[in-house]
């Protein structure tokens, strides 16, 4: 182990930087690809690029380099997002998609704590996301509270409502626990539809965000250039996502993450070693739901509208598929997976009514050929900075 350590700490950083740049450039082209041929070309290109990467052994080199310089990787990812955003400063739609990817990633980072670390399944992610949006809608229209506080409160409300489920979630496991959250998700949507107090099926309007007089829904004028107002939301979402990411990584590497891993892998063993199972499951469940609520609040304020139809069982599945496709337990996989899951169906608009069919087929293929997701979680690394597996 230590031999490997000393060897690989000399690993160069350029493969990492190249990798991040390639992904960034690719994401940029994908966001802006409009014609069918361009999208198809990009899809084929991605597959060939992946094959080329693994054939030449570049994937391994990038991975080694990434493990050696984790901070550089984080900085690189943030820089890539900022650069892609900066290049498309006027492109409202590209920025909207990018912000959506960031917000969904935040929710999935929360789900990752639940699914990936402590093994609590949650098929009601969209419901908690929705609770956040609805809280924002009610508080922003009917109270003078500052909007950043509302975002925090939305997270709190989602966590609190989630705690209603704690007892059944603690008592059940696996598929039984899945049923509880599925039932909750369906119940949530039906309740909103039949209940008129929260706008019923027509939904509610949400005022745009405003922090210290800075109106998020106005375009930003710099000299002659007008920047898209979505940049405001992008910056906020990027901040939330980055903070969440750091939090999740810290959690994973701390003794708390270790305890959660034990709870997931073997409850009996965990109990034998004095690990409080209930405590970690509750922590993970509440934390994840809170993150979903916060992201939901920002998303709601950005789109300006919330309705029950946004939060169906199908939407919860989208969230779960991001976590699984990214590689359960690996926060690094979430961002690319979210980009694929959210942007791909959008880019498939040209095949119109066939796009859902194709999308479902693609997901099945990915699951068959990469059962552990795009970036599978590595076995826990007890020596920080160790590059080895």
């Amino acid at each position, binding site marked *: 182990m230590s031999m490997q350590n000393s060897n690989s700490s000399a690993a160069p950083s350029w493969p990492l930087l190249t990798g991040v740049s390639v992904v960034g450039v690719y994401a940029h082209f994908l966001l802006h*690809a*409009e*014609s069918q*041929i*361009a999208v*198809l*070309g*990009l899809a*084929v*290109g991605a597959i*060939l*690029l992946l*094959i*080329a990467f693994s*054939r*030449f052994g570049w994937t391994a080199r990038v991975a080694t380099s990434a493990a050696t310089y984790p901070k550089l990787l984080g900085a690189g990812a943030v820089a890539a997002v900022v650069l892609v955003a900066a290049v498309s400063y006027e*492109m*409202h*739609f590209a920025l*909207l*998609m990018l912000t*959506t990817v960031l917000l969904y990633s935040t929710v999935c980072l929360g789900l990752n704590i639940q699914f990936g670390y402590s093994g609590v399944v949650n098929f009601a992610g969209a419901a908690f996301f929705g609770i956040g949006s609805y809280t924002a809608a009610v508080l922003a229209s009917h109270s003078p509270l500052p909007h950043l506080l509302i975002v925090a409160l939305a997270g709190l409300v989602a966590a609190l409502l989630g705690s209603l489920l704690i007892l059944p979630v603690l008592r059940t496991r696996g598929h039984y626990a899945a049923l509880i959250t599925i039932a909750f998700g369906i119940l949530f949507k*039906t309740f909103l*539809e*039949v209940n008129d107090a929260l706008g*019923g*099926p*027509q*939904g509610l*309007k949400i005022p745009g965000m405003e922090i210290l007089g800075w109106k998020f*829904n106005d375009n930003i004028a710099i000299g002659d250039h007008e920047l*898209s107002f979505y940049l405001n939301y992008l910056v906020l979402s990027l901040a939330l996502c980055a903070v969440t990411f750091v939090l999740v990584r810290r959690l994973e590497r701390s003794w708390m993450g270790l305890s959660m891993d034990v709870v997931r892998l073997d409850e009996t063993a965990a109990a034998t070693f004095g690990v409080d199972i209930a405590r970690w499951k509750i922590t993970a469940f509440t934390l994840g739901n809170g993150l979903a609520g916060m992201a939901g609040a920002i*998303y709601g304020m950005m*789109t*300006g*509208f*919330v*309705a029950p*139809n*946004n939060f*169906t069982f199908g939407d919860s599945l989208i969230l779960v598929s991001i976590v699984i496709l990214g590689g359960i337990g690996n926060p690094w996989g979430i961002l690319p997976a979210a980009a694929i899951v959210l942007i791909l169906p*959008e880019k498939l*608009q040209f095949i*119109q*009514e066939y*796009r*859902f069919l194709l999308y479902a087929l693609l997901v099945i293929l990915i699951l068959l050929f990469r059962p552990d997701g795009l970036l599978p979680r590595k076995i826990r690394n007890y020596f920080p900075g160790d590059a080895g597996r």
Partner: protein
Amino acid sequence: MQRRSFARFTLATAALVVAGAFAATPASARDTVKIAFIGPLTGGVSVNGIGGRNSTDLAVRLRNADPKSKYRYELVSLDDECKPNVGVQVATKAASDNSIIAGVTHYCSAVAMGTVDVYHKFGMPVIVWGAVLPEITYGNNHKEIHRVNGTMVNQNEVAAKFMTSQGYRKWAIIHDTTDYGKGHNKYFSEYLTKSGGQILGTFGVTADQQDFTSELTKIKELKPEVIFFGGLTPLGVRIRTQMDKLGVKAQFEGTSGIKSDAFAEGLGKDLAEGSLSFIEGAPWEKLPGGLVFTGKYAQQKYAEAPEAYGPFAFAAANMILDAIEKVGPNRKKVRDELNNAKNVDTIIGKVTFDDHRQNIVPLITKYVVQDGKWVVWEDSEYGKGKRKLMGR
């Protein structure tokens, strides 16, 4: 091995370059102008969305075939999945793309409610072709939002008055719990009570429900003369079938949502017979333009029917195309042109926008199923007194 993979890599690069070249193919002689269609193309109500898409597509094709038109039109059609969040996404996509001049948008009311602000923000004029919630036009004062179809208010006023004039007094109401069904329930109940009808019971059902036997058994106990259903075709078919199954004998009255060929086909001739529906606009089947529409639609060999709101999408698309022909591909000018529409001839009758850019629909057409086909009430054997509605 190494060489082979390198060859593949080169191939990939080449493919990308070719793709890029294709993406930048130049346009043809006439300037190309884009318009958008947005509606549900996947999921439960996709049948209506696809019908609207085809109808809009038809309008664009006919215009392109017309040698007199000044521009070549290109239709960008987008899928909103009948979900507000997806709707906002695709609306932003269309509206922020300045090459798209105007749009024929939305079948689902909740989606339309969510997107009106987006169109306003980006200044893209749109004409709503199917969503019926009054607030879409009356809940804001955005100059960009127009609507050719009437609201559920008009529809239900006529429906309630007509039915009470037929001598019915006792109703049971079933509505789906979407904005569509709930809205219909609200306005129909309001007008029914005003016209002297009595509501024995109201039942909200979810839009994907299969089994209505317990609601219908309850209704059987209440013994209404009419069952009013506020919702779309799939549910309507199920409810009408199960009424028969349980021996509930009452007149079946629906809203614009069941006026589709699929309703009559889904039920079969016997069960569908005598079902009623109300839809805003002139009976387009009887107008000369309407016949042209059905003829041309058949010529294009679309796999799917236009459905009840296809003609509205067709009319909306034509209004937009006319406006562009007249004032050029400029969003602001097209918007102002549309704002001032007065007595414009379309296949759904004359279109006039009021101060909220809502088409003032003077006419609600009543339909009844006769021998497996929707027939305008006045022309039907029911209207002429040869056949009788249930219980009359």
